[in-house]
């Protein structure tokens, strides 16, 4: 399923990749970028978490030609604007109104219609702007863009630095939500998954699909999907073991026939107190205590309280 979404076989307009400090989701985001570049006219990338050059390294030249960077990383608060030669093109500032749609319109070539958008990542935007701002911006990008259409919008979101309701709100608006977790392994990325992905996908028909898949992204940002049922680590499901009958194949007989069982139940075992015997004992009146002093017993006939003057 994840592979279908990545390669565009299964349409999904807004994809949220939520990662954690235990497992970063940037490789998957880059794999999405590469796949999108092959399908659309232009891919616009908003960098808030890493330097544009860092993100762009690793892509081949054909892919790079289709990528357009918008730098919201190097001087997002205008702290260094005065000392550097101002090159406002493609720079984003949290201190100004951050209109992603206008940014794309200004940067795109005129004949490009199909556009994909990558946001790396939403976390700094959520910190500096409000949640409502981010929700509106995502909605705006998906539905109301004017002269171009956004085929797919893929956003990275760091799961463990926001409040739960913030993450839930963002996820709610997504058509596909990929929650990543690590896969402890030392095998090569070709043999065992790099990470695990919990996928919730809303189909156009309204059906919601939930899947748990393994994935790897290898050297040339190629995506590999793993069928969890074929992996040695997850193929540990125990086959129902046959219950062994210990009385089978013995040299002697441990089983009882019905007749034998009845005969066995009728026998009264020695030293067993029967109900009638028990009742006669109880009816026998007050009990008596017989005490036979031992030789070693120091038995005193005198009243021990004799000297008390009460």
């Amino acid at each position, binding site marked *: 399923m994840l592979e279908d979404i990545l390669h565009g076989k299964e349409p999904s307009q807004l994809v949220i990749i939520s990662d954690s400090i235990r497992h*970063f989701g940037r490789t998957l985001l880059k794999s999405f970028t590469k796949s999108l570049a092959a399908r659309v006219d232009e891919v616009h990338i908003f960098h808030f*978490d890493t330097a544009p050059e860092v*993100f762009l390294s690793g892509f081949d030249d054909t892919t790079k030609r289709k990528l357009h960077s918008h730098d919201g990383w*190097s001087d997002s*608060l205008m702290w260094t604007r005065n000392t*550097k030669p101002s090159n406002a093109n493609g720079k984003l500032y949290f201190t100004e109104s951050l209109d992603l749609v206008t940014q794309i319109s200004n940067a795109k070539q005129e004949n490009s219609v199909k556009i994909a958008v990558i946001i790396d990542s939403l976390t700094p935007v959520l910190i500096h702007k409000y949640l409502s701002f981010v929700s509106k911006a995502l909605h705006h990008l998906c539905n109301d863009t004017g002269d171009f259409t956004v085929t797919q919008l893929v956003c990275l979101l760091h799961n463990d630095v926001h409040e739960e309701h913030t993450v839930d709100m963002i996820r709610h608006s997504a058509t596909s939500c990929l929650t990543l977790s*690590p896969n402890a392994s030392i095998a090569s990325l070709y043999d065992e998954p790099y990470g695990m992905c919990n996928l919730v996908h809303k189909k156009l028909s309204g059906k919601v699909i939930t899947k748990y898949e393994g994935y790897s*992204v290898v050297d040339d940002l190629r995506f590999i999907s793993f069928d969890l049922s074929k992996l040695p680590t997850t193929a540990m499901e125990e086959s129902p073991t046959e219950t062994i009958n210990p009385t089978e194949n013995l040299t002697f007989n441990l089983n009882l026939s019905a007749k034998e069982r009845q005969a066995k139940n009728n026998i009264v075992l020695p030293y067993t107190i029967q109900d009638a015997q028990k009742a006669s004992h109880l009816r026998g009146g007050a009990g008596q205590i017989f005490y036979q002093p031992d030789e070693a017993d120091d038995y005193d006939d005198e009243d021990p309280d004799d000297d008390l003057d009460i």
Partner: protein
Amino acid sequence: MFTELNALLDCIPSRPPKGQFILLSDNLTDGTFILHHYISLFLKGGHKVCLVSLSQSFSHYNAVGQKLGVNLSLAKEKNQLVFIDGLQCSLQLFASSDDSMQNNPLVCIRDSKTTLQPLYEMVRNAVCNSDGKVETPVLLLIDDLSILLSLGISLISVYDFMHYCVVMLCGSIQSVGCLVTLIHSDKDEENSLLLRHLLYSSHLHLHMNGLSSGFCKDVHGELSIHWNDPWQILPSRQRRKIYQYKIQDKHVSFFAPGTSAAVL
């Protein structure tokens, strides 16, 4: 400089870490000894160091430096070391009431509308050359970020300040600077949140943990080393290692968990 630690971190003393953000955190123990390791590593290599101190005075670092074989006073005179005395700056803000504090780098303690930009500019002047660039290996060490939070500075301000330090020193592939900072992550929610935020941009995370069984004279704590790969240019699995350590008079010895003198 602890030679054993260099070996664990694959660091050659003549070539100190370049373009790296090294994040230290400690829990139920004191992890400041690693800070002194990095100060002496850079000073011995003849590189520039900028030390933003919020927790100790200069004489403290100088005394520890002398034990490790570096003279901080001399380095300061030669301009190899720039010491920003955050302790003094924060005290001035609390102690004096006049309004002439606008030049104080920590003015945002008093005025919540301002940011840590003055501190950033002070640091930038210390580490950058006249063109505003970092071209030679330089260490920026901040001891420690938890104090900024404790002084009442908002988490976002500290996060922004750190973001700009990362951009300046170790944000891109060509960067040659090195950023080292410490956060105490004992149970405090704000500290843990800041730590998680910074982990997304750090290259190396060293976490010092006290022993859960309590004091032991042969083991002072546990060090876990995580090699993070925030850029993920080539996909690879995250590496991590765990060691126990014992701090001695002039060096620290590291050993595999369970192989201390108390056990063997």
